[in-house]
């Protein structure tokens, strides 16, 4: 997230007469090339001629619709529980907070497939919690669209929590303290003061979580399986197409890439400039 740099570039003029040291420039350009060349290769090798044909198959739009729906729902879910969790970690002191914080970030380092297996063991039909969901409410989550949303939330929410927690720590707590001194309850202070202060951080975290959810593969295919229109999101469609039809896989990847760029660019203009 480049929100900080973007803002500072505008407010603080660059120091004139000082070139960029080569020792920084060279690795920076190498890093940039490393990130861009694979995407460029995707464009160069794209089956442009057969692209219209590839993209008019109904399966593509079904998968895209499902991807957007699930990633957005997962982001909303992450916001509802993730922001309060971030507040708890940043603003309160309780024994074992460091441990809780480490546990929250665990899905960041866990291979997503392991996350998917863990979700099956917890929320599967036979899982620790899932067997009661099935027995009491008749709800089974694996192989459903709700399962996709949960898998994506599991993987994406830590990004939001970390991002919001960082913003909260950087925000001056004295505004909240002033509000409570003036008689506001702690919740009102959170709602009326803190949320306004950290809105850009929440937006950045939400975008990050949304992007992660959109690209989610491992946890989704493990927990929710793969069925067109119900649980087959774009990354799953790309992976399976890659097995026997690389051209179709590239075409699908291009769609996902275009949508991601469009959404990220759109959001950046709307929200992040205000950071």
């Amino acid at each position, binding site marked *: 997230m480049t929100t900080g740099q973007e803002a500072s570039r505008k407010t603080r003029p660059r120091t004139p007469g000082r070139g960029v040291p080569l020792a920084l420039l060279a690795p920076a350009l190498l890093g940039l090339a490393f990130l861009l060349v694979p995407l460029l290769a995707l464009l160069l090798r794209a089956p442009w001629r057969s692209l219209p044909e590839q993209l008019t198959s109904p399966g593509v739009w079904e998968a895209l619709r499902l991807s957007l729906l699930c990633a957005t729902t997962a982001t909303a879910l992450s916001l509802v529980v993730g922001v309060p969790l971030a507040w708890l970690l940043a603003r309160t002191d309780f024994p074992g907070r460091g441990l809780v914080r480490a546990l929250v970030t665990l899905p960041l380092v866990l291979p997503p497939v392991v996350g998917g297996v863990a979700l099956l063991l917890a929320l599967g039909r*036979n899982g620790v919690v899932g067997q009661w969901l099935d027995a009491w409410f008749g709800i089974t989550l694996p192989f459903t669209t709700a399962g996709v949303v949960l898998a994506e939330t599991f993987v994406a929410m830590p990004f939001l929590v970390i991002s919001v927690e960082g913003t909260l720590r950087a925000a001056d707590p004295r505004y909240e303290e002033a509000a409570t001194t003036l008689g506001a309850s702690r919740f009102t202070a959170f709602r009326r003061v803190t949320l306004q202060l950290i809105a850009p951080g929440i937006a950045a975290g939400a975008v990050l979580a949304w992007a992660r959810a959109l690209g989610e593969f491992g946890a989704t295919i493990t927990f929710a399986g793969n069925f067109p229109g119900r649980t087959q999101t774009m990354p799953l469609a790309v992976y399976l197409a890659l097995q026997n039809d690389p051209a179709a896989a590239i075409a699908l990847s291009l769609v996902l890439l275009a949508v991601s760029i469009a959404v990220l660019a759109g959001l950046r203009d709307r929200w992040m400039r205000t950071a």
Partner: protein
Amino acid sequence: MIRSVRRAGKPRRVAGVGAIAVLALSGCSPSGPGSSSGPEGAGVTGTVTVFAAASLKETFTELGERFETKHPGTEVTLSFGGSDALAAGINNGAPADVFAAAGTKAMRLVTDEGNTAGRPSTFVRNRLQIATAPGNPLGIGSLDDLTASGLKVVLCDETVPCGTAAQTALTAGGVGLTPASYEQDVKSALTKVELKEADAALVYRTDVRAAGDKVEGVEFPESAEAVNDYPIARLENAPNPSAAKAFVELVQSPEGRKVLDGAGFLKP
């Protein structure tokens, strides 16, 4: 998706260097160590890299161990994965000596590019079974039973061999089945049954056998319509041709056959 199992043979490095030195000194090897392999694979040394279909994991791991015992100073590196993915790897220059696929289609991808040495030969065949929970609590006895409402069945995706076989069997039986999921490979389909998330799956009988008492296999007649041939071949650009030859010979020997039979594979 490629898992690699590497076992370290103890004095292999020294032995390998020694063997090469002997060969070089004796001058009996004009075109490299490849031409010096005798009937019992004398002179076989070094690392042999085998790319094998995921369903061969148990048997080829066992055969790899036997190969190392038979030919001291060798090391077998096994790489298991989806047959098509492995074929793509080979065609893109992966340094493999032997390729064993779970279907003729994946092997054809490699032969079409001229990347096999000689014709591939079918060494085993495999057919499908219905995998159910231990004891078959729902009393599933046929493909038709899988269409019962409320039953959660998983199939392999049609892009992988076990999915193609499943569709062939379903078509042969005239059974219209809507599964809960099309899994990305046979082991994932089996896992869903092991974890009791799915009530049944169509998988290879060898996978049912390998899962031990965690699942139960149910035979069904339509599986005869969807038998998979498993071809094996040495590769054209094999870094270690003599060891490749010896490994393929071991797989096709009576000893290799016994290991494969024991796992539930059918004779070619």
